[in-house]
């Protein structure tokens, strides 16, 4: 209790120093927290979205781009493939399920996907209200998209050309026939219509010239996925990619940046601890007389030790609390401002057990920083110090 009062007094006495130390600690913890939330949430979202899809086959181009466009619905597609090629893959005996999809249109930034019933089976999606689309220009809306667009069965809407917001509008009307039950995956954010709708809105090509953007494939065995990938990549003009491999590649690409940020966070926390150490050490030097006086007034060694140690710990705890809050606010603000962040499923409103580790590290740094000054306070020679001029 007495130590707590002394800590509060020390803070009131030097509010700027205390605020600076606390803010430095908060900055380090905030960067670490934001980084943790970003990597954990985007990792989980990507793994979840790609579940059940062993292989993606699309037009020649970057496999990473293909996966990002056709599975995660973040990037633009590499091009189109002939529907006949897609159907040939679907007919392969090693394929358990295949869904050809057509991309290219959107509604106020929410993507329209042309697909058949196999697509819903791959995503294990079923309507919560209404039914799945059966005829061209019918559409079923993912749970998130329906809520944000305010669309319900019976409503109609215009598709816009392009995947961003504000493309040219098509004249044709889509009719909403159902809303999908929330799956917690990418399908919650999609609008699904038969492939025929896509062909119809893009100039209805002849039956033989029909195209798709990609084929999503679930194979019977993991080995089949690898064999099929090999065959497609060497024997055709198409590209096959495995979502887990590409997701891993993506993380190794952003991994270098993440490592740098992690190093930065550690550096900030370390600097904060160092400044706490320097502050407490100079406090010990300047206020040696006060510590001796405290002892002369009857405070024990343990009390003065605790007062200094507690000061470091309290600075770290306050900084960590503020930092955790700032980290969550930063991620939430990012998610609200950027649609890419939203696609990655980022939210500042959920916590992760890893934050406990960050807080523990910050408290440990504060404790370590205060330890040497606290030992100095513990060992102050009271009689000697009181005999010296203050």
């Amino acid at each position, binding site marked *: 209790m007495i130590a707590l009062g002394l800590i509060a007094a*020390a803070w009131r*006495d030097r509010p700027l120093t205390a605020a600076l130390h606390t803010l430095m600690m908060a900055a380090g913890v905030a960067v670490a927290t934001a980084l943790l939330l970003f990597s954990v949430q985007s990792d989980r979202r990507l793994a979840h979205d790609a579940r059940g899809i062993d292989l993606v086959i699309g037009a020649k181009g970057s496999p990473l781009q293909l996966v990002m466009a056709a599975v995660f619905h973040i990037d633009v597609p590499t091009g189109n493939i002939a529907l006949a090629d897609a159907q040939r893959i679907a007919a392969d005996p090693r394929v358990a399920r295949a869904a050809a999809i057509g991309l290219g249109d959107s509604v106020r930034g929410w993507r329209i996907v042309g697909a058949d019933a196999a697509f819903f089976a791959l995503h294990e999606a079923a309507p919560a209200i209404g039914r799945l689309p059966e005829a061209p220009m019918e559409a079923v809306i993912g749970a998130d998209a329906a809520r944000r667009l305010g669309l319900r069965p019976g409503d109609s809407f215009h598709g816009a050309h392009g995947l961003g917001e504000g493309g040219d509008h098509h004249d044709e009307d889509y009719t909403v026939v159902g809303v999908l039950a929330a799956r917690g995956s990418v399908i919650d954010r999609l609008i699904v219509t038969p492939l025929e709708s896509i062909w119809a809105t893009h100039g209805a090509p002849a039956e033989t010239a029909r195209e798709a953007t990609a084929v999503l494939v679930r194979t019977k065995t993991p080995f089949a996925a690898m064999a099929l990938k090999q065959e497609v990549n060497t024997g055709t003009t198409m590209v096959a990619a495995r979502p887990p491999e590409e997701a891993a590649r993506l993380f190794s690409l952003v991994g270098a940046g993440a490592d740098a940020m992690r190093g930065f966070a550690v550096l900030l926390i370390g600097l904060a601890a160092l400044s706490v150490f320097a502050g407490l050490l100079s406090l010990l030097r300047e206020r040696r007389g006060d510590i001796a006086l405290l002892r002369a*007034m*009857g405070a024990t060694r343990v009390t003065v030790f605790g007062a200094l140690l507690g000061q470091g710990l309290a600075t770290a705890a306050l900084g960590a609390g503020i930092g955790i809050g700032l980290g969550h606010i930063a991620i939430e603000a990012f998610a609200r401002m950027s649609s890419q962040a939203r696609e990655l499923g980022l939210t500042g409103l959920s916590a992760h057990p890893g934050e406990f580790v960050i807080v523990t590290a910050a408290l440990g740094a504060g404790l370590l920083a205060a330890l040497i000054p606290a030992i100095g306070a513990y060992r102050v020679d009271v009689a000697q110090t009181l005999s010296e001029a*203050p």
Partner: protein
Amino acid sequence: MIAISNLQVSRGGRSTLDLPAWRVQAGAMALVTGPSGSGKTTLLHVLAGLLRPDRGSVEIDGVAIGALAEPARDAFRAGRIGVVFQTQRLMQSLTVTGNLALALRLARRSADRRRMTDVLGRLDIAHLASRRPRSLSVGEAQRAAIARAIVAGPRLLLADEPTSALDDAHAEAAIDLLCAEARACDATLVVASHDARIFERFDTRLSLERSS
């Protein structure tokens, strides 16, 4: 009140105090004199339990303070002994009231605002209650330091050279205050000083020689 026998204290291998016997009655006003280096401050530190004697016994109120473990000595000091130093030591990070409240809490007493106001009023510094020590004059700080030393109602009040930095009028006033406050809380007063101006104010005197 104080009973010392065969006391020997050495610091850094040198004997700094050698006192065969000394007794002070409860409620007495005692003066310890001697040239600098004769061990006046050492004696006060031993009485305060800040230094442990190498030999001999020191009893205060029947308690052999030299034989207590350090935490027990700390608690004894907090509850029963008030110390006024040569330079007016106060906690710099606390207000005058904060210093008094801290002394009360260390003595395991509640920080009773009325008691603090009473003490400050008696010392004529009630208006300085919320000031920081560094904004006080020397005389004001001395009064605040005395208030801090007596607020918890000590049985023994120790003062180390309380007048050395003061002119005649202020030295007189400081001794008046110490004696009055010691009497007011029924405490025994021990002052260590080489200030000849105040000698005749004390009934019990101890003269220390520089140890060889």
